[in-house]
């Protein structure tokens, strides 16, 4: 029997539809990293002295640090002097920045439209405010009027440094200190833009907030910084998306995201990460080395991270929660899909400090092709955390026989009243499962994507509806093959 049609691995490649480049005049600083470059970035952004001092301090810390090597990923040594640390469309410089999104360079509007983020007034999506970041700068934020009315501050971090210096000074680095790790220190020194959000006391943010990151320039690193504060009793649903052009060279993306939730506040942070992954042979793609951490500082505060990690050549990312307030809760819901030559080492840290704190971890890893996919998670119950509870479930699914999945759970308990549950499974999509779906008329790719979607369901249901739809489509697209 001719079985070629049914036995071929369908996951050989996936065409990246966001791989185009925008032809736009840019202001890019020369390659290399030293104090002068940092001064230059700071002056380009007209920053106050305290911000420059913060950057320089971080740079000096970074210089003394060494690159971490503990992650289950391998890549050639990065030459940090061969990168440019700032690139912005010319028309976005501090002097000539458009006052509203409608005055944006049409090329940029076109770019974001192609990415499915309409920026022009007529087409803008209501019910969501988007801050769009192109290379090193935020190009604008939509639906500001609705937010102003509610008293919500949502702007680029550059604007926040100018207009809300007290808030930035108070919170920047309060969750991820400059000294935290190599990439966090680097980010603190050179971060160019990102989003800032402040939800005042008792305010439920009336619409969802979103940041869309786009890397365009070649040989440029993107270092964005996001700072989100939810004051007492506040609530916000925050979404983040990212894409980059298809290039043969690797590009570095080292972001820092800090969240602070005060008493009874709740932050839901969702990411769909679809950076360029590199080609089949592993050429090119983004190095996604990101530090994301939330501090549930207040009583009964809640922070949840939901992520769909489907892009990047290498992902090194552990969105974490520091559960400081009594009764605070942290959650991490993750789907990480790797294909071709991708490498992912991702997971979370849940640090229980307060009494009656609770954390939930649901991680779903899917490996296909020759990729490697690792879950790394830490649950730490400090002595002060009476009656802390954690539930972790880490499932891995292998598609094909050349990929790998690993799980590295670290559990540290210093208080006997803690309850910890950890479950882990590894499965392979079975021939019988695929055959069952095929025998009902679903072709092989559709069968596999249905099985994978089913596997990820517990995570997808945590995503806001539109994001869940996008995530399902994204996973399907990635699983689509060139059979036939």
């Amino acid at each position: 029997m001719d079985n070629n049609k049914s036995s071929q691995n369908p996951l050989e490649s996936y065409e990246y539809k966001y791989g185009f480049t925008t032809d736009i005049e840019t202001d890019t600083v020369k390659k290399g990293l030293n104090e002068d470059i940092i001064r230059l970035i700071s002056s380009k952004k007209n920053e106050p002295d305290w911000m420059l001092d913060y950057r320089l301090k971080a740079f000096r810390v970074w210089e003394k640090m060494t690159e971490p090597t503990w992650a289950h990923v391998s890549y050639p040594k990065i030459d940090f002097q061969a990168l440019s640390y700032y690139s912005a469309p010319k028309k976005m410089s501090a002097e000539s920045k458009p006052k509203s999104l409608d005055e944006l360079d049409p090329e940029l509007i076109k770019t974001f439209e192609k990415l499915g983020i309409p920026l022009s007034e007529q087409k803008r999506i209501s019910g969501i405010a988007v801050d769009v970041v192109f290379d090193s700068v935020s190009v604008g934020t939509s639906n500001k009027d609705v937010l102003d009315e509610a008293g919500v501050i949502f702007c680029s971090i550059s604007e926040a440094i100018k207009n809300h210096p007290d808030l930035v000074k108070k919170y920047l680095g309060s969750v991820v200190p400059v000294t935290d790790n190599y990439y966090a220190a680097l980010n603190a020194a050179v971060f160019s833009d990102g989003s800032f959000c402040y939800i005042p006391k008792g305010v439920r943010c009336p619409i969802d907030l979103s940041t869309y990151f786009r890397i365009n320039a070649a040989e440029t690193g993107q270092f964005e910084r996001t700072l989100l504060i939810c004051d007492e009793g506040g609530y916000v649903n925050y979404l983040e998306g990212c894409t980059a052009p298809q290039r043969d060279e690797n590009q570095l993306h080292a972001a820092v995201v800090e969240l602070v939730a005060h008493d009874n506040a709740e932050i839901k942070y969702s990411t769909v990460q679809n950076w360029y992954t590199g080609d089949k042979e592993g050429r090119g793609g983004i190095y996604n080395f990101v530090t994301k951490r939330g501090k549930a500082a207040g009583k009964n505060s809640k922070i949840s991270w939901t992520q769909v990690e489907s892009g990047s050549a290498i992902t090194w990312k552990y969105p974490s929660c520091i559960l400081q307030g009594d009764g605070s809760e942290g959650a991490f819901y993750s789907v990480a899909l790797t294909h071709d030559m991708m490498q992912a080492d991702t997971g979370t840290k849940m640090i229980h400090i307060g009494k009656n704190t609770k954390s939930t971890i649901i991680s779903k890893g899917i490996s296909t092709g020759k990729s490697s996919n690792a879950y790394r998670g830490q649950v730490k119950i400090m002595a002060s955390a009476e009656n802390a509870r954690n539930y972790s479930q880490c499932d891995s699914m292998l598609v094909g026989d050349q990929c790998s999945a690993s799980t590295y759970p670290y559990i540290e308990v210093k208080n006997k009243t803690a309850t910890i549950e950890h479950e882990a499974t590894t499965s392979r999509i079975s021939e019988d499962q695929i055959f069952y779906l095929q025998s009902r008329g679903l072709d092989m790719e559709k069968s596999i994507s249905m099985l994978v979607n089913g596997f990820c369901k517990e995570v997808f249901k945590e995503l806001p509806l539109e994001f869940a739809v996008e995530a399902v489509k994204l996973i399907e697209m990635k699983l689509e093959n060139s059979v036939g």
Partner: protein
Amino acid sequence: MLEIKNLHARVEEKEILKGLNLKINAGEVHAIMGPNGSGKSTLSKVLAGHPAYEVTEGEVLYDINFQMKNLLDLAPDERAKEGIFLAFQYPIEVPGVSNFTFLHTAFNSILQHQGSDSMSEGEFREFLVQKMKLVSMKPEYLDRPVNTGFSGGEKKKNEILQMAVLSPRLALLDETDSGLDIDALRVVSDGVNKLRRKDNAIVLVTHYQRLLDYIKPDFVHVLLNGKIVETGDASLALKLEDKGYDWLIN
């Protein structure tokens, strides 16, 4: 509709079918009986295209648009789209995928193949609720993950529901009666009987004559050691019930 000629097939280097011949016409119900290991399940899996089974000799001709084509050239999903349906002996669990989504996707992929417009979720739900009555299934099963946590009987009913929805031209029921209590057997058999039409054919693979009390076959075949050794009408099944298979082994 279907003609199997000198079919040889093996799984993991072991030859199971050793020159099987069978002809099935539209409107007929065939029962295939035989002792354990005679190749009954292999036959249904080979016809549906299970990748673990390798055909080493022979051909299977199947009527597609009034032309006899070699069924073995088609991938399993293409066979399904051309009207072949296999009710599994052990239906597979699909965690996280609702029965509704599964059936809706399958149904629409077949419609699409036939060049028809797909059916909306709302319309399909109504259609499905009607079909569920055929096998006395409660609508709540639609929102449960496919076969996950279903009892043996529920799984078998779910297979017949799928058959009712996909409306195949050739249905292969692989030991659909196994593991069913007498009430469930009656429900499942009634369902199958209601799906009998002049333009479709049903193949029942079974160990027991019991099923044939409920679904009356036009032909009964005895499969022994990879070949059909005896063919008769419904009375052959009664004879087997009475005398076993020994008299057929020379």
